[in-house]
C-alpha cells in the first residue's frame, strides 16, 4: 500500500501546485504510515523529477512516452491509473489545477473509488469512514463530506495547503505506458500562450482593475505596477465585456478563479460575483475612492482614494524601494 501523488509538468518543470499536493500527500502518508510515491508524465530531466524528494516522495514513476508530451485527459488518466495499480495505491492525491480537475473524475470511475475535489485540509478517518473539508458555493462555504469507500482521490485546492519540505532520497522508476486507441480519440492541433505574462492561476501577485479606471487607455499604470511586482493583470467582468481588456483576464465567479498570495484590486466595487472568484487570495489590498465600496469588507488592507493618484504614488514608492 502507498499514497500516490500526481506530479503535473508544465514547460519541462513540475508545477508548484503539484508540490502543494505532494505536501498534502506526505502528511496523509505519515498519518497512515505508508510510503509516498508519485507519478510524473513527461520527458523531463532526472534532476527535475528528483525535486519531488524534497517534499517526501520516495519513488517517482516517470512516464516518458512521446505520445504523452501534451496533456490529454483520457490517456493521462489511464497512465495514472496504471501506476496506481502498480504501486497498490490506497489514496491518490492530485492538485486541483485545470488538468487535475480533468483527470480526477476519470480516475474515480476507473479505480471505482470516491473522489473529493477542492479539499483544503487532511481527512479524518474514524470507524472506517473518511471525512474531509472542501470548499463549495464558490468559496462561500466549507462543506464537510464523507465516504465509506476505503480508497479515495483527493484533489487539493490551489494555494490552500502550505508547501513544506520533508526531504528524503528519491529514486526514479522508468514506467512504460502506451495509451490505447480509445484513449487517443482527441487530437491536439496547436498549443499557444495567451500572453507572455505569467498566467492568472499561477501568479503569486495579481493586479486587477475595474470600471473605476474609466477606459482602456488608463491601463498603462496597471501594467506598470504589475510588471514592477512580477504580477499578472486581471480585470472585472464588465471591463472584459466592453473589451477594455481581453476576456481571459476576467476574474470572478464566471471568470477565472484565482488564489494568489496578494490580490490588488483597483477601482473594483467588490460585487459578490467578483469576490467569489478572488476570496481565496491570501492578502487582499483594495484601492477605491468610495469608502462604502463592498470590497473593503473582504479586504485586508484598504486605501480610500483616487486610483489616478494612489497608483502612480505607489509605483513611485516601489521604484524608490527598489532603488
Amino acid at each position, binding site marked *: 500500500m502507498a499514497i500516490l501523488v500526481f506530479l503535473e509538468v508544465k514547460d519541462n518543470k513540475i508545477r508548484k501546485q503539484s508540490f502543494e499536493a505532494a505536501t498534502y500527500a506526505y502528511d496523509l502518508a505519515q498519518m497512515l504510515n505508508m510510503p509516498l510515491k508519485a507519478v510524473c508524465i513527461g520527458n523531463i530531466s532526472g534532476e527535475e523529477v528528483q525535486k519531488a524528494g524534497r517534499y517526501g516522495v520516495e519513488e517517482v514513476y516517470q512516464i516518458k512516452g512521446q505520445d504523452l508530451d501534451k496533456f490529454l485527459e483520457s490517456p493521462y488518466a489511464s497512465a495514472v491509473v496504471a501506476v496506481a495499480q502498480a504501486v497498490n495505491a490506497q489514496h491518490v492525491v492530485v492538485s486541483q489545477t485545470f488538468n487535475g480537475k480533468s483527470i480526477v473524475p476519470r480516475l474515480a470511475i476507473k479505480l471505482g473509488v470516491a473522489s473529493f475535489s477542492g479539499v483544503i485540509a487532511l481527512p479524518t478517518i474514524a470507524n472506517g469512514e473518511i471525512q474531509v473539508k472542501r470548499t463549495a458555493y464558490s468559496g462561500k462555504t*466549507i462543506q464537510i463530506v464523507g465516504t465509506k469507500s476505503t480508497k479515495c482521490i483527493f484533489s487539493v485546492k490551489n494555494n490552500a495547503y502550505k508547501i513544506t519540505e520533508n526531504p528524503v532520497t528519491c529514486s526514479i522508476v522508468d514506467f512504460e505506458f502506451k495509451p490505447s486507441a480509445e484513449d487517443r480519440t482527441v487530437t491536439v492541433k496547436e498549443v499557444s500562450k495567451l500572453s507572455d505574462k505569467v498566467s492568472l492561476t499561477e501568479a503569486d501577485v495579481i493586479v486587477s482593475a475595474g470600471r473605476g479606471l474609466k477606459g482602456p487607455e488608463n491601463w498603462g499604470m496597471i501594467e506598470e505596477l504589475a510588471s514592477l511586482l512580477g504580477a499578472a493583470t486581471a480585470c472585472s467582468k464588465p471591463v472584459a465585456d466592453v473589451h477594455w481588456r481581453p476576456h481571459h483576464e476576467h476574474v470572478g465567479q464566471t471568470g477565472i478563479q484565482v488564489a494568489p498570495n496578494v490580490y490588488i484590486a483597483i477601482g473594483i466595487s467588490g460585487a459578490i460575483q467578483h469576490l467569489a472568484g478572488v476570496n481565496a487570495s491570501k492578502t487582499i489590498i483594495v484601492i477605491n475612492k468610495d469608502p462604502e465600496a463592498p470590497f473593503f469588507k473582504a479586504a485586508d488592507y484598504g486605501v480610500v482614494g483616487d486610483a489616478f*493618484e494612489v497608483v502612480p504614488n505607489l509605483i513611485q514608492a516601489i521604484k524608490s524601494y527598489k532603488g
Partner: protein
Amino acid sequence: MNTLICIGHVPDTTTKIQLTPDGKQINKEGVTFIIGPYEEYAISRALELKEGGIPGKVSVICVGGPKADETLRKALAIGADEAFRIDTESTDSFFIAHQLASFIKENPFDLIMMGKESIDRNASEVPGMVAELVGVPCVTFCSFLEVNNGKATVRREVDGQVELLEVPLPAIITAQKGFAEWRIANMRGIMAARTKPLKVIPAKEVEEKTYVVGYELPSAKKSCTFIQPENVGQIVNILAERGIL
C-alpha cells in the same frame, strides 16, 4: 445533430449563503435558483449552431427535485426544444453522473455539453465521470466550439494557454466564458416554453459514493486595515514582508 445540455439548478450568483440552524444544509429559503451560468453558455452555443444551419434538436436535462422544473422551463424559454428531469435530490457526483450516463446510453446524442463546473458544488467531476461511464471523449474548459462533418473543433483555455483540439462526435464538451453570449428569454419564448415537453424520469438505483456531513461558513476576514493615501509606502512594506519585493 442532436445536442444535450446537462444543466444545474443552482443558487443565483448574488446569493448570500446561509446555513440551517443545525449546519447540516444550506438554507434554501428565499434563495432564487438559476441555470448554472456555464451551462447557459452551452445552451446559447447549441442554439447558435442550430440557427447557423446544423439541423437537429436541442435538449436539456437536469438531475434534481421538482423545484428544478422551473429552471428547465427557463432553458426551454431561451430556446431549447425539450427538457428532461431525473427525479432525485442527490448531490453525489457519482450518483448524478450515473443517472446522466444511463440516460445518454438509452438516448444517444451527437453532442453533449455541460458547464465547466457547477457553482454550488464546484467539483468539475460529472463531465469526466459521464465520459468514462458512456465511453465517449470529453474536452473540458472550452471557450470555443465549431462543429463540422461529425467532428468538433474546440479551444481549451487553461493556465494562460490555449489548446486547439479536434474531437470526433459523440463527445462531451464543457463550456467556460468565451463559448457564447448569454441569452435572455423573450416573451414569445416564455409562452412557448409552457407547452414544450418536460419529461420526468425516475432515478436509477445506484449507491452514492459520498455524503454531505454538514457545512461551515468560512471565518470572517479580520476587519480591513485602512492606509491613508499619502502613506502608500506602507503597501510597499506589506509587499516586502510577503517576499514580493
